[in-house]
């Protein structure tokens, strides 16, 4: 065997690559570790300096996230019956009682409805449009595709004011439907372009064979094209969900009560005597979970998805 090989990297470069990857992973994961650990700290621990790496874990942040609390007079506090639940107990340790649930639950649910709703709509419309662009003679096809792409050429927030006025007139402000439509509008260009690339790669012969085998165009699309486009659909869905899930600016501008999503809500969590960092961190941690789970569920498709077109099997 020769000392140098074209296909096999040398030991040194393997080590170097390994070190770089581990270092990069450490840098990227550090904020996540910080957020997740802060969620389990007590109030004082969360702001202590130097930061505590080892601490007494507490669920205070999570309890605060889901509840509103009040401080009551000392004699009333002493007269209270013993706490009924573990979270009552956590709150009483701070000398407070639970006044009611917080709005985090419904904000989180709003995020789920709007995030997944707009992703679903973007994918359905995007797949159909991409299929049409890929397979049929569409008049002015190139111009239309460019037009669709051009909606992505400026930051969406640049049109915030017109959209705000439009939504107010149409009664779409602060509604789930309004937010779903808005995020779909932003995502659809990405969806059409990504999916068209995937569908272009599926040879037409498959559908033609299905047409001859006795299927209609739509059945051929459903039975032959969709299963083969699964990879593309999965990765496009992840991109769409990540945008809709994390979007902050429009959510601040267009929602306040009814349809407010979690991103504008989390920073407003205020504890008694200032910002309640453990509760904010707990909210952020829970907020990360759905996208993480969604991505893990689809990761099998994702790997080929993001490198699509690079290597043809």
């Amino acid at each position, binding site marked *: 065997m020769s000392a140098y090989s074209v296909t096999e990297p040398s030991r040194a470069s393997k080590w170097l690559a390994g070190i770089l990857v581990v270092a990069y992973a450490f840098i990227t994961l550090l904020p996540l570790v910080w957020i997740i650990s802060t969620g389990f700290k007590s109030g004082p621990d969360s702001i202590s300096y130097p930061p505590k790496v080892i601490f007494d874990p507490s669920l205070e942040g999570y309890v605060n996230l889901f509840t509103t609390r009040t401080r009551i007079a000392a004699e009333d506090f002493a007269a209270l019956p013993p706490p009924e639940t573990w979270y009552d107990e956590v709150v009483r340790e701070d000398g407070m009682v639970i006044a009611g649930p917080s709005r985090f639950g419904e904000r989180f649910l709003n995020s789920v409805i709007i995030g997944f709703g707009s992703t679903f709509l973007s994918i359905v419309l995007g797949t159909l449009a991409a299929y049409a662009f890929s397979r049929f003679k569409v008049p002015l096809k190139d111009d239309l595709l460019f037009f669709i792409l051009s909606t992505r050429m400026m930051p969406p927030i640049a049109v915030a004011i017109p959209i705000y006025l439009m939504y107010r007139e149409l009664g779409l402000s602060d509604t789930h439907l309004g937010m779903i439509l808005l995020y779909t509008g932003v995502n659809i260009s990405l969806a059409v372009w990504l999916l068209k690339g995937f569908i272009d790669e599926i040879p037409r*012969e*498959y559908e033609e*064979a299905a*047409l001859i*085998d*006795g299927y*209609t165009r739509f059945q051929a699309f459903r039975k*032959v094209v969709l*299963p083969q486009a699964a990879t593309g659909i999965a990765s496009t869905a992840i991109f769409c969900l990540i945008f809709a899930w994390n979007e902050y600016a429009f959510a601040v501008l267009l929602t306040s009560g009814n349809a407010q999503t979690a991103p504008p809500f989390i920073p407003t969590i205020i504890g008694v005597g200032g910002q309640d960092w453990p509760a904010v961190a707990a909210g952020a941690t829970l907020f990360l979970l759905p996208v993480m789970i969604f991505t893990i569920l689809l990761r099998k498709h994702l790997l080929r998805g993001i490198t699509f077109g690079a290597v043809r099997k």
Partner: protein
Amino acid sequence: MAEVILSGLTKSFGATKALSDVSLTIPDGAFVVLLGPTGAGKTTTLRLIAGLDRPDAGDIRIGGHSVKAETPAQRDVAMVFQQYSLYPHLTVRDNLAFPLRSPMIAMPEDQIAKRVQEVAEVLRIPHKLDNKATALSGGEMQRVSIGRALVRQPRIYLMDEPLSSLDAKLRADLRIELKRIHAELGATFLYVTHDQIEAMTMATHVGVLDHGRLVQYGSPREIYENPVSAYVASRLGQPRINLLPADLFGPAPAGATQIGLRPEHIHVGEGAPATIRRVEHLGDQTRLHLTLGVHEIITLTNPHTPLKPGDSLHIRPQNPLWFDASGNRIQGPTP
């Protein structure tokens, strides 16, 4: 099974005329082979009959009525593509069952299982039924795609060079198998090939296409023995017909510019002197490459010939074919 009639079929793709004014009757139960080089319009003809493309002009009648307005599914035809037609996300079994599960046929599952097993045995792939389609070799894939046509009993089987990617042994076996299916079921076939043996052994009719025109249509024998042009004559025959200047061996009929000599048209023993340049022993036959002046001629001789390169012999034409300046056949006497 049904008679298929093409009349005045014309199709262009942009500026390229793929088919022009093709009329052809495929009788019920016939095995029609289309011959022609790449770009002659063979595949386009199949696609128009299948309904994958629409003709610019002309009509297609299957079983007595026009199918021009029908979808591919309604036409009830089966097609084997040259490549790429197995559904990669399905197993071999599901690929074979796919046409039978279509809304047009909707066969009960127990019958599908039986039918798939039968066809798999014919094609010798029963042990591969549960493999993913993508886990097969090229030859196996092509067998499955032929099988996907054979599970059905369509009005016509359209086959686009179905055996071209197979090895010689399998090709010979499947040739016999297709011929048997044709004979037993009385099925109608329209079959595209480059392979002369496939054309000669399977066809009841041969159609020769040239730049989108059907230049001759008849029995394989007729096409071979009585070609209308030098182009048609050079489609069939191994080794190919020798096309030489008309007056090479003496006077030619009026208007003839080319003489066409198939190997059996060359009589050895008298006539013009030729030199052997190369001797190819192919086992069942031996080819002689001759030079006559500046011209090269290929002919056949007996397998155990003692002739060797450098030897010379005398040859003369025997019942040759004559062609005019534009390649059309001239019926003329042997001078």
